[in-house]
């Protein structure tokens, strides 16, 4: 996520979805769940239109995984109702399980089985005959570039290969709705990009995806709409662009020559914004009211205060800014480049 000067008015990724889709692939109303005294979810509403990606963002412990577990029948909600692919998640669990795929953050494949054996086993548990399950397994191994490793026990696989196999296992029955719980956590950048390509292709072919992630760039790239969840409630929902607009307009970023002048620089810029400038090291950031003339005015103010500037740029808010503004803390602390 570089602070490249923004291109404004880029294509909106949301498309022309109407606000309420009667044929929503996933629809939840008032979902609540408590574990003892801990209220993990407090009345979550959610809609995901067919063949789109909903990115579920939130800090650790916000309730993302609990929501996924409810929508995939692993947990029963205390209150509320939800349907996936038109099937109720509580009353019709077995029928629903035939229509969903789940890939989790722990890569739930059996280490002692080979790639092909894993997929064949899953296929047979979906009710395929052995030969059909095997054929489908081979097909998926090819699709996920795992043919060469097909006969090796999974414990010899790399992290990226395990995730691909995990995703392949979720796709055995060609489910119309796919749940991905932090699918790329812990993966190297190359494997993440590969996995993103696979997910985009599935969506282009009509699969609906609910994706939880801590990586905002992942959500920005894949998600048509984003729901931000914190303390068990959805606190914001919209397309990535809508959410960025909500945080405010352009952000001015000033890199100072001397970090010790950061406070003085913030002071100098205070009049340009309705908010207090944020400082971190030699970087001062502030939301500005209008785009035109902002850089010139900032340079003039800083110059008048005798502050040396290394670099200055305007950019659109990122999802990081959104996240920070909404939840009061940054998203993932680790691995964020």
């Amino acid at each position: 996520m570089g602070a490249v000067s923004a291109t404004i008015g880029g294509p909106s990724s949301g498309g022309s979805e109407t606000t309420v889709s009667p044929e929503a692939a996933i629809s939840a109303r008032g979902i609540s769940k408590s574990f003892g005294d801990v209220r993990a979810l407090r009345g979550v509403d959610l809609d995901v239109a067919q063949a789109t990606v909903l990115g579920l963002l939130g800090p650790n412990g916000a309730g993302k995984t609990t929501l996924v577990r409810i929508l995939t029948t692993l947990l029963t909600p205390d209150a509320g109702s939800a349907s996936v692919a038109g099937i109720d998640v509580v009353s019709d669990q077995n029928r629903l399980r035939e229509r969903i795929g789940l890939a989790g953050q722990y890569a739930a494949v059996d280490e002692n089985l080979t790639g092909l054996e894993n997929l064949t086993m899953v296929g047979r548990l979906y009710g395929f005959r052995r030969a059909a399950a095997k054929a489908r397994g081979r097909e998926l191994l090819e699709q996920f570039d795992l043919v060469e490793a097909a006969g090796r026990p999974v414990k010899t696989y790399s992290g990226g290969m395990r995730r691909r196999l995990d995703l392949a296992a979720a796709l055995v029955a060609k489910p119309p709705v796919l749940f991905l719980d932090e699918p790329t956590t812990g993966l190297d950048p190359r494997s993440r990009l590969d996995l993103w390509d696979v997910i985009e292709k599935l969506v282009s072919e009509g699969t609906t995806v609910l994706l939880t992630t801590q990586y905002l760039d992942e959500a920005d790239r894949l998600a048509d709409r984003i729901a931000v969840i914190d303390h068990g409630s959805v606190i914001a929902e919209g397309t990535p662009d809508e959410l960025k607009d909500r945080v405010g307009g352009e952000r001015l970023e000033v890199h100072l020559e001397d970090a010790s002048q950061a406070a003085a620089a913030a002071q100098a810029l205070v009049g340009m914004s309705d908010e207090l400038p944020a400082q971190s090291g030699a970087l001062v950031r502030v939301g500005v009211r209008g785009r035109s003339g902002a850089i010139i005015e900032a340079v003039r103010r800083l110059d008048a205060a005798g502050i040396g500037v290394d670099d200055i740029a305007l950019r659109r808010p990122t999802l990081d800014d959104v996240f920070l503004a909404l939840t009061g803390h940054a998203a993932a602390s680790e691995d964020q480049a």
Partner: protein
Amino acid sequence: MRRLLSDTLVVTERNLIRLPRAPELLLAFTLQPIMFVLLFRYVFGGAIRVPGGSYAEYLIPGIIVQNIAFGGFVTALGLNEDMQKGIIDRFRSLPMSRAAVLAGRTSADIVTNGLSMTILIVTGLIIGFSFQTAVLHVLLGLVLALTFGYAFSWVFAFLGLLVKSPEAANSVGFLAVFPLTFISSAFVPGQSLPTPLRQFSDVNPFTIIVNELRWLWTGQPSPDQLWQAFAWVAFILLVFSPLAVRRYRRAAGR
């Protein structure tokens, strides 16, 4: 019901595939029992006086029961590992029979128990054990041993779902089963034990199972009845399988 059977078969197969690929497990099922037979027969055997027959004849039924009771520890390890690694979640998200996960696990134990029992019997035959009863009694003895092992697999299934780590499952299982088998008639006659231990040994289900197995295979008279042995098997099964299933539901529903 057909779904339960076919899914159980798939899960059983999955649990057995790993055996030849995990040398340490295979050793536990093959070499370890042989080692125990040889140690008991040749190290302790000379010092232990048993009523009638040789020590080899006395020992084999006892060591088979001990070994088969331990056989279920693979279930404890396997289930615990599956919980930790999310494989149970994968299973639960599939349109499969829920009972098949536990049934497949314990069924796989029947196969591995059968394997180690065969090895034990062959070793026994080499060192001086022999069947001295009718074929029907011998077969009935095999059934008793295997069903007892199956019942114990459910004890281990419960245990594996209860504890936090595979290591814990292992040590708790060891602590529970070892004293139970040693303070029984498996290796030494109850009369040789100090009074409190003898009283415990007399009512210990292991003693009853071993005595009946000895009677079925070598014709040694037993103070207990065959129905008592099968009643214990049924009792263990009826107590621990619902416990394990309940625990599975609860542990998986987090």
